[in-house]
C-alpha cells in the first residue's frame, strides 16, 4: 500500500504550491511561445516547441513490432502459405477469424483456405493468431492503422485484401490464381451463413416478424379458442382403441 505523504506546512498553505505550479506551467508557456515565435520568423528550427505529430501529413514513426493490420503471406506461386489449420481461428479470443478449408491440388500441401475472413470490427489486435500460426502464414506487420469504414460489412477483410494489403474496399477485380470463395465475382458462398438457421437461442428476434406475417399472427390471436371437446366419459380402457382399423 502506498501511504499518502504527509504535506509540509508550506504545502498545506496551498498558496505557495499554487504559485509553484503556475510558475512551472508559465515556464513552459514562455519557453514554447518564444520558440513558436522564433519558428514563425524562421529561426531555431531545430528546437521543437511541441511533441505533436501533425498526423495525416506527418505520420508517427511506428515500431516494427507494432501489431497492425493483418496480412497473409504468400508462397512463390502466389498462393497463400496458409494451410487452413484453423489454429488462429481456434485461438482467437474475439472470434473474428473465419476460415473455410479446401483441397489443395498438391497432396504435400493438402489443405488451403478457400475463405479467410478477418472482421476488423471485432478483432482486438492481440496477435495470438500470429503466435499460433505454424506456417508463418499470417502476420500483423502491414503498418496499416487507418482502418475505417461506413459499414460493418466493410470492416471485414477477405482473402483478396489479406493477400494484398495494398487493396482497399471496395475490391474491384480479383486476380487470385486459385479457386476460392470470391466475393468480388459475386460468389454466393463468399460469405456463408453468419447465423445458423436453427434454434431460438441463436436467432434474435421474431420469426413471425421476419417473415412479414404479423397480420396473420394478429388474426390467429383474435380467433376464439375452440370449445373444449366433451370427452366420452370414463371409458378409456388401456390398449383398447376406438379406432376402426
Amino acid at each position, binding site marked *: 500500500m502506498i501511504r499518502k505523504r504527509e504535506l509540509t506546512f508550506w504545502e498545506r498553505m496551498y498558496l505557495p504550491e499554487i504559485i509553484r505550479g503556475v510558475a512551472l*506551467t508559465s515556464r513552459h508557456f514562455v519557453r514554447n*511561445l518564444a520558440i513558436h515565435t522564433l519558428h514563425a520568423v524562421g529561426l531555431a528550427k531545430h528546437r521543437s*516547441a511541441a511533441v*505533436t505529430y501533425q498526423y495525416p501529413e506527418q505520420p508517427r514513426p511506428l515500431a516494427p513490432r507494432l501489431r497492425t493490420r493483418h496480412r497473409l503471406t504468400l508462397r512463390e506461386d502466389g498462393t497463400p502459405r496458409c494451410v487452413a489449420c484453423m489454429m488462429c481461428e481456434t485461438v482467437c479470443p474475439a472470434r473474428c477469424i473465419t476460415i473455410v478449408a479446401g483441397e489443395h491440388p498438391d497432396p504435400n500441401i493438402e489443405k488451403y483456405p478457400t475463405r479467410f475472413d478477418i472482421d476488423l470490427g471485432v478483432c482486438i489486435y492481440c496477435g495470438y493468431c500470429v503466435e499460433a500460426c505454424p506456417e508463418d502464414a499470417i502476420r500483423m506487420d502491414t503498418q496499416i492503422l487507418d482502418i475505417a469504414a461506413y459499414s460493418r460489412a466493410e470492416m471485414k477483410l477477405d482473402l483478396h485484401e489479406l493477400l494484398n494489403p495494398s487493396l482497399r474496399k471496395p475490391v474491384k477485380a480479383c486476380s487470385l490464381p486459385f479457386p476460392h470463395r470470391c466475393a468480388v465475382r459475386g460468389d454466393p458462398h463468399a460469405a456463408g451463413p453468419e447465423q445458423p438457421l436453427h434454434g431460438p437461442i441463436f436467432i434474435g428476434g421474431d420469426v413471425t416478424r421476419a417473415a412479414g406475417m404479423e397480420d396473420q399472427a394478429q388474426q390467429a390471436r383474435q380467433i376464439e379458442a375452440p370449445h373444449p371437446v366433451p370427452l366420452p366419459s370414463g371409458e378409456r380402457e388401456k390398449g383398447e382403441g376406438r379406432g376402426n382399423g
Partner: protein
Amino acid sequence: MLEAFLIKLSLAAAVFFGVLNLAGLHTWIERKQSAIMQDRIGANRASIFGLRLFGLFHPLADVLKLFTKEDFIPPGGNRVLHTLAPFLSAFFALVVFAAIPIGNTLTLGGWVIELQVASLDIGLLYILAMLSMGVYGVVLAGYASNNHYAFLGGMRAASQMLSYEITMGISLIGLIMWSGTLDLQAMVRAQGQYLWGWLPLWGAVVQPVALIVFLAAALAETKRIPFDMPEGESEIVGYFVEYSGMKFGLFFMTDFIETVLVACLATTFFFGGWQVPYLFPDGFRFPWGGAIPMAPLAVTLAGIGAFTAKVVGFCWLFMTVRWTLPRFRYDQLMRLGWQYLFPISLANVVATGLALRLLS
C-alpha cells in the same frame, strides 16, 4: 442632453465590442495557451482559403457550428424559462461592465467624458448585485431542463455562487473602508497615491490578503477552474446538460465574459484600474527625478491602454491557473469557502479597521 446620451451609448457600444471580442477570443486563447503550456500545438486546422492564422478561425467555426446545431428543448421542460436562462446569465454578466471605469476623464473638443458607462455612486454595490443576479440564469437552466442531473447541477451551482458571493463582498469591505467610497472611479483615483513617494498605493498593496481572497472567491463565483463543479464540462453533468446550439453557446460565452469581468474587477479594485505608475495628468514624473511631459489626451489613452493590458494580464493568469490546478472536490470547495476564506475576509475587515484607526 442628447449628446451626452449619444456619447454614453457609443461608449457602451465600445465597451460591449471590446468585452465580447475579448470573450470570443478567449475560446481561441484557452485552446492555444493550454496547448503551448502542455507542449502541444493546439487547434490550427480551420482555414479560409488555406489561411490558418494559428487557428484564429476556430472561434468562428465554433460559432457557425453552434448556430447550425439543433436547438433542443427537452420534453417536459419549461420552454420560456429554458430559453430565458442563458440570456439572464449573459445579461447579468454583461451589465456589470457598465460600472467599470476604463479610463480617466476624457476631455475631447469641449466635451468632458467620464470613461465609465454608468457613473454610479454605489458602483460597487451595483456590481455585487448584478453578479448575484447571475445565479438566476443557472438555477433556471437547471430547473427548466426537466432533468434531475441538470437540476442537481443548478443547485450545486447556486449554493456555490451564494457561498462565495458573501466572501467576495466582505473581502472588498476593507477596500471600501480604506478608500471611503463605493464609486469605482473614485476608488481608482484613490489608488493614484504613492506610499513613501514611490510605491503606487494600489489595492494590492493596501489589501494583499483581500486580493487573494477576492481572486479565489471571484473564480468560484464565476465557476472557473478550479471551482468548476457546476459546469464540469465533460466530467460532471452540470446545469446546462440539456442545452445545445447557441443557447449552450451563450452559457459558454457567459463563462468567458465572466473571466474578463473578474479580470476587470481585480484590475479596478487591486491594480489601480487605468492608473499607470508615475503617470500624472501632465505626464510622467519619476520619483528618482526626471519627467516626460505628455498631452492630456495621450495620458488618458495611456490609461485606457494600461487598463486593457492589466485585464489581459489577469485573463492570462486565470487561464494559467485553469490549466495548472486540478478541480476541487465539492466538500473541499465548501470548506474552503466557509471555513477559510470567509473568516479570513472577516478578519481582514477587522484588521483594516484597526489599522485605519491606528494610522489616522
